[in-house]
């Protein structure tokens, strides 16, 4: 009750739609060609190290990390490089991409050998060599996150709060051994004494499994999370699991990060990928994605080579239902994922879903006048006040936006989801945040 007075932060009751949770992962047939962009992470794009006509194998390095905050990129198929050229990504930005014609043999690069890890530095080198980024959707390079020295708690994000998506569920059910070995390696070499695995309550079988497997692991605990979107949002997850709050501003004046409150968050698939890499030496070249929606013939979980085009993924899932008109392609979940303008975009490292909605399911209601009911305020997981912020943004009131902490918006979409007037609340929030940051930088520049 008292906490409710401070901040309602109830989140949104989104539908679960986890129809594919019981479907085992199927390996996707190797597509004829893949397109691997050099920007599949937050930070500097990778620099391509292959040229047209080169022969590559599975796991061959094709993109070298372009800075400290960046990640290596490896070929997901064996074959010949068709082209290295700029391409427009699905989010509208342009970056270089390597197109590879697959020979279908999937020969493994002999350079892929299990890394030797003895301490934190060698672990970080191994993580860089694996090309690991946050696989939950953000794509932040993992090695950068783990480099901080102030961490005492590793939070494993297995909330999977987005509707439809079941890739993390399948990871826990199918690859629990590599999850545990990955956690073990991170805790051991980074000297992190505690680990909390946060799993939303709508996955009881995963909670049971993780409970039984971690019983004998000192410092590791499982935390069942309430069934409210967005439990998997980093700051919300840290608060629910540890009670700590990620500060808005770090002591150095930049935006606060989990390390400022002693935490690091890793997605459960990321940590499992690390476990697999330490075991086999095969870098991150495939990704499990949930293919679902009312327009796809055979929904399921697919292990796709990174760079496979949506078109081929859809083909592998039986194509679009014949009597349905495809209305929308969403990469990621329906709450935070983006809509693709066509099926000619590649699957990225951080993609975890591909939703194909019929025109009927994709139709959105018209916006009506705001009735000031305050449901967006109740829902906001960060405790922001979208209706007030929208007003302040309309007035271009910088000080008011600063007082309302607009920079904390995580764009989870809860406010839009719950709005009874069907207003595009989170878009207004995004515009307000962008305007605020621009003004702030402008002021700092003066």
């Amino acid at each position, binding site marked *: 009750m008292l906490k409710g007075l401070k901040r*309602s932060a109830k989140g949104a009751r989104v539908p679960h739609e986890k129809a594919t949770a019981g479907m085992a992962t199927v390996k996707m047939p190797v597509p004829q060609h893949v397109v691997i962009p050099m920007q599949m992470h937050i930070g500097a794009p990778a620099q391509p190290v292959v040229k047209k006509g080169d022969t590559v194998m599975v796991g061959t390095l094709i993109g070298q990390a372009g800075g400290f905050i960046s990640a290596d990129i490896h070929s997901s198929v064996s074959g010949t490089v068709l082209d290295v050229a700029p391409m427009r990504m699905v989010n509208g930005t342009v970056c270089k991409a390597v197109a590879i014609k697959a020979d279908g043999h999937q020969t493994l690069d002999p350079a892929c050998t299990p890394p030797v890890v003895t301490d934190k530095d060698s672990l970080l080198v191994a993580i860089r060599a694996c090309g690991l980024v946050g696989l939950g959707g953000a794509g932040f390079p993992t090695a950068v996150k783990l480099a901080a020295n102030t961490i005492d708690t590793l939070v494993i994000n297995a909330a999977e709060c987005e509707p439809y998506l079941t890739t993390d569920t399948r990871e826990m059910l199918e690859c629990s051994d590599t999850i545990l070995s990955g956690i073990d390696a991170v805790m051991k070499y980074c000297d992190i004494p505690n680990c909390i695995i946060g799993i939303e309550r709508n996955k009881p079988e995963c909670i049971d499994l993780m409970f039984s497997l971690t019983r004998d692991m000192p410092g590791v605990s499982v935390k069942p999370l309430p069934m409210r979107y967005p439990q998997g949002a980093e700051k919300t997850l840290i608060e629910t699991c540890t009670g700590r709050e990620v500060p808005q501003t770090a002591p150095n004046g930049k935006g606060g990060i989990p390390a400022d409150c002693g935490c690091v968050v890793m997605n459960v698939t990321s940590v499992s990928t690390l476990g697999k890499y330490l075991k086999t030496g095969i870098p991150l070249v495939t990704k499990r994605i949930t293919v679902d929606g009312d327009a796809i013939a055979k929904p399921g979980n697919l292990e796709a080579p990174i760079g496979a085009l949506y078109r081929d993924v859809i083909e592998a899932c039986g194509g679009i239902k014949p009597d349905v008109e495809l209305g929308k392609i969403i990469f990621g979940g*329906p709450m*935070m994922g983006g*809509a693709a303008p066509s*099926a000619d975009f590649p699957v990225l490292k951080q993609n975890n879903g591909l939703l194909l909605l019929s025109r009927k399911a994709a139709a959105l209601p018209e916006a009506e*006048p*705001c009735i000031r009911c*305050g449901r967006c305020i109740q829902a906001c997981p960060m*405790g922001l*006040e979208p209706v007030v912020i929208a007003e302040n943004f309309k007035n271009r009131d910088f000080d008011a936006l600063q007082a309302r902490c607009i920079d904390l918006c995580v764009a989870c979409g809860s406010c839009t989801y719950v709005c009874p007037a069907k207003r595009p609340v989170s878009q207004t929030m995004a515009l307000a945040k962008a305007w605020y940051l621009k003004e702030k930088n402008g002021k700092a520049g003066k």
Partner: protein
Amino acid sequence: MEEQRLIVTASPHIRDNSTTRGLMGNVIIALVPSIVAAAFIFGMRSLLVVGVTVAACVGFEYLYTLLLKKPNPVGDLSAVVTGIILALNVPVNMPLWICVVGAFIAIVIVKQLFGGIGYNFANPALIGRIALFVGFATRMTDYVYPDMAVDALATATPLAVDAGGVSLLDMFLGLHGGMMGEVCALAILLGLAYLLATRTIGFAIPGSIVITMFVLTFAATRDLHATLVELMAGGLLFGAVFMATDYVTSPFTTGGKVIYGIFIGLMTFLIRNFGSMNEGMSFAILLGNLLTPWFNDWSHQIPLGRTKQKKAKKEKAAAASAGKGGAA
């Protein structure tokens, strides 16, 4: 695949099924027990009053938007809610033309002239009631008493008689004089239960109003019976459940709602006990409505991990003084 016709929109790509019309519909359903109770207690004319007022409200809204070539908002049902609440706020023998005047004030003057739904500064039905109360004072207080009512209530509203002689059961069931919707506490509580169950409103506003009134009245009278009569008499419950909770004119956050509720409870208590009127609820809510922007300003939520801006202020002050020093 017909890719050129794909829909591309910003996330999120799904919405819940709540709508303005649905929320207003919930309020209408919650008002049904009060309408039925009014029909039982005061006779069938109450249905006529409700019908005429609702028709007038919807009609005025439609005509206004037609005249000004605005989109037709009748489908959101908010005018229906205003009409029912206004009708339940008049005595049953109110001349129908006065109800139509009230509807005009509520819909055209208070709601539409200020920009329609979402922009009214106070609850339209409330202003309609107050306007009628001020403009047609004798008719608004010309309460009709149900035949079943006991003698103690045959004089005026229970607020004006000695509370000791009033039966609590009669008060609860609504067998006493008053406005049509206000008298039956049972029907109002049924409506509240429905609103809470459908999450149309939260408990913060009605709860804090009633609790504040209870505490203050009990402290003043030290008599549980008199306190309960006070709570069920007049427009307190009806106002707390259906009028103070109007989304547009009540604060956003839980904290703000509690402050607002306490304020309304306090003002009602003060007006009832120290003012010249027996009935203070509608004026208390009006004051609360008008102060809502301030309540909003006083009751902001604390965002997750907010860093206090003190440091920035200090820096600013330091920069300002440095600037002065430089100029000097």
